[in-house]
């Protein structure tokens, strides 16, 4: 693979201020793409801009609320005017609001489904026009091992991520004829702020279930996302790539 295989391409990565999203933004930049990373706050967007600049990646951080359709439309308009249409979309923004089902609040259910699943609908729809016109596109959705394994206290999160995988397969069928591929990457337990909050005892228990006996690193997910964005992955679509240290072999 050439070092700059994504040169000239505009990539949009949601939730790019930290964790997997940040690593993905840097990896796509390393591959030559101009990267727009989004965060929910100005501070987050500024931190993305700094990170990209430090890595000598073209692009910048932008504020985006993925649960707000107008916010998505406005951002797409701004990106298209300033840089051109994003042809690589990485739907990474996500939250957890864990609770046992019998205690789960409607707000916890709705917030997770809206941020993790409906957001993917909003951003993908907004980017598709540019992709169909270009007759080239890559949509890469970050799912989770929890989509297939389930996890107690995460019925909302698991439902949102399993939804993302179904969305991936349907959209892949719709737009395949336009040379647009749609895939998911399902990380296992990755060392990020999202898993940092887990109790130490639970983390130890988790690691015992992972053949590779450690949490994954964000860069190990970013490498797979980067691959899916490049030309050698052109014949992969509708697929979910599992990157979990062997904890959920299929």
């Amino acid at each position: 693979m050439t070092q700059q295989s994504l040169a000239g391409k505009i990539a949009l990565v949601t939730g790019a201020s930290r964790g997997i999203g940040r690593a993905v933004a840097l990896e796509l930049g390393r591959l030559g793409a101009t990267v727009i990373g989004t965060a929910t706050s100005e501070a987050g967007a500024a931190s993305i801009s700094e990170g990209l600049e430090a890595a000598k990646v073209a692009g910048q951080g932008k504020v985006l609320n993925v649960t707000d359709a107008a916010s998505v439309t406005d951002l797409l308009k701004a990106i298209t005017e300033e840089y051109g249409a994003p042809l690589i979309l990485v739907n990474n923004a996500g939250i957890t609001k864990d609770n046992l089902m019998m205690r789960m609040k409607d707000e916890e259910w709705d917030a997770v489904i809206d941020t993790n699943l409906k957001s993917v609908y909003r951003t993908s729809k907004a980017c598709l026009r540019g992709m169909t016109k270009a007759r080239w596109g890559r949509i890469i959705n970050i799912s989770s091992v929890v989509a297939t394994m389930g996890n107690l206290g995460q019925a909302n999160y698991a439902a949102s991520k399993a939804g993302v995988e179904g969305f991936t397969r349907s959209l892949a069928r719709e737009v395949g004829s336009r040379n647009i591929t749609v895939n998911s990457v399902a990380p296992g337990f990755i060392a990020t702020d999202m898993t940092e909050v887990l109790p130490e005892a639970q983390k130890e228990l988790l690691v015992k279930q992972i053949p590779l006996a450690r949490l994954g690193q964000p860069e190990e997910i970013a490498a797979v996302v980067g691959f899916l964005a490049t030309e050698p992955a052109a014949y992969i679509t509708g697929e979910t790539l599992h990157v979990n240290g062997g904890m959920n072999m299929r």
Partner: protein
Amino acid sequence: MSTIEERVKKIVAEQLGVKEGEIQNSSSFVEDLGADSLDTVELVMALEEEFETEIPDEEAEKITTVQEAMDYVTANQ
């Protein structure tokens, strides 16, 4: 300045990958020009851009031939 007919036919030709000479006013996008469902959606979007108008979904569904596209554009100029 091209006529509406010329502009519509140019867009149809570009979008569906057919020669302008093969396009009749009576041509149906799907039956005569080989469009699939995604082609018809893209075609309507291209018409919206060319004529700087918004075509509501319920109107878009009724545009199935070149003539119908021309009629819509003429009526909504």
